[in-house]
């Protein structure tokens, strides 16, 4: 069974078709970099994967569970699918520790001690062990994003989605976040990243998915796809971002 399976997925915003007959299969342990121009539907695709956005037709399966089925318990599904947003979306009224332990305590019913231990552990993984009692607004953007990743990791997800997680950061802060992502990738996590960081994609992704006009326009192993694009659209996209 594949970890993620999209079959003929289409989605509209009113008259606008943002996803057009998308089919894609992702196996456990893969790191997928979704690239494409803004408006190509890549972020929408990610948000559809954990049910934040409804789709109009097709099927999305995660670990054999159909996401777009009214009978599916999305809450249960989301415990296994972490998502990290471009704008961090930390809870501003909660400390770093409470941000991380909230869901484990409420959803996974962990004891406060147990949750706190896990918080310390995931914070160490993102290199912020000393910030456990800080408030979000005391942290830099890069640190906030690393806390957001830690918050997601604390749920011990089977799949993680990253929606342009470095786009809202100043250039000098993207490095620390990318290093955290590398660490997560090395641990064998199945990851789907919408990203502009071609360097990161080249080194750590296993597969490139290029989206254009709501379709999966071209996909393949990273090195080949980036060095020998098959379509004119990917070629011109790469020319634009690499120069």
């Amino acid at each position: 069974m594949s970890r993620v399976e999209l079959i003929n997925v289409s989605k509209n915003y009113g008259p606008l078709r943002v996803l057009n007959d998308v089919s894609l299969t992702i196996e456990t342990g893969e790191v997928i970099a979704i690239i494409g121009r803004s408006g190509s539907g890549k972020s929408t695709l990610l948000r559809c994967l954990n049910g934040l956005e409804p789709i109009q037709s097709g099927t999305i399966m995660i670990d054999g569970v159909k996401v777009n089925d009214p009978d599916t318990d999305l809450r249960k599904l989301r415990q296994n699918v972490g998502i990290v947003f471009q704008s961090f979306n930390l809870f501003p009224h909660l400390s770093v520790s409470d941000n991380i332990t909230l869901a484990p305590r409420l959803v996974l019913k962990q004891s406060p001690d147990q949750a706190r231990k896990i918080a310390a552990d995931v914070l160490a993984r993102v290199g912020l062990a000393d910030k456990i009692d800080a408030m979000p607004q005391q942290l830099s953007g890069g640190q906030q994003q690393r806390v957001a990743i830690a918050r997601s990791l604390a749920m011990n997800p089977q799949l993680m989605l990253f929606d342009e997680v470095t786009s809202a950061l100043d250039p000098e802060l993207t490095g620390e976040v990318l290093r955290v992502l590398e660490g997560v990738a090395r641990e064998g996590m199945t990851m789907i990243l919408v990203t502009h960081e071609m360097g990161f994609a080249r080194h750590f992704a296993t597969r490139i998915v290029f989206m254009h006009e709501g379709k999966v326009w071209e996909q393949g192993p990273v090195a080949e796809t980036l060095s020998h694009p098959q379509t004119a659209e990917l070629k011109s996209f790469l020319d634009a971002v690499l120069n």
Partner: protein
Amino acid sequence: MIREFGTGDIVYLVFAARWTLALTALAFAGGAIVGLTLAVLRISPLAPLRFLASLYIQIVQGTPLLVWLFLFYFGLSIAGLPVNAWTAAALAYSIYGGAFLGEIWRGALIAVAPTQWEAGASLGLTYVQQMRHIIIPQAVRIATPPTIGFLVQLIKNTSLAATIGFVELTREGQLTSASTYKPFAVYITVACIYFLICFPLTQWSRRLEERFNVAR
């Protein structure tokens, strides 16, 4: 019999203000229960609930408080209950306060960024958990200054309970004025007592608001 307006009367008026405060407390408690319910219904995902809550608010905010006071005052006897200014006032002010607090609190709830709901949902939290742990704590900070502002309105509006014979500060003023025939002195005193209660609250609300705006 006409007597002089003296220190004793002033003390008496200050003392009557405790009924103003008691009625305010009762009105605020009742209004808070109604208001919180309305605020939550107003942002509920179910359209009929939203509609009903909004209808309630439109109606109450479109009628004078005086009408509610009299409706309840006279309505109690129709419902077979003893006519009592306390009960009538408590009910009328809860209905009235609820509509305004409901709007204030709904505003605070929707002022919390929608991405906060999303972040909660994507961690697997239920709607109620998102509301309880993520949205409401943030909304409370936003809502505190306007809520105190409304409390001032409420204190002033308890004066209307005098019209159904509820003896609070204003009613006591009417009675004192009638017996001393010094209406100007009496009503100035009454106004001063209201001012001394309301002004600190107004200032407090303003300071909180300024601090909140700076923090943003």
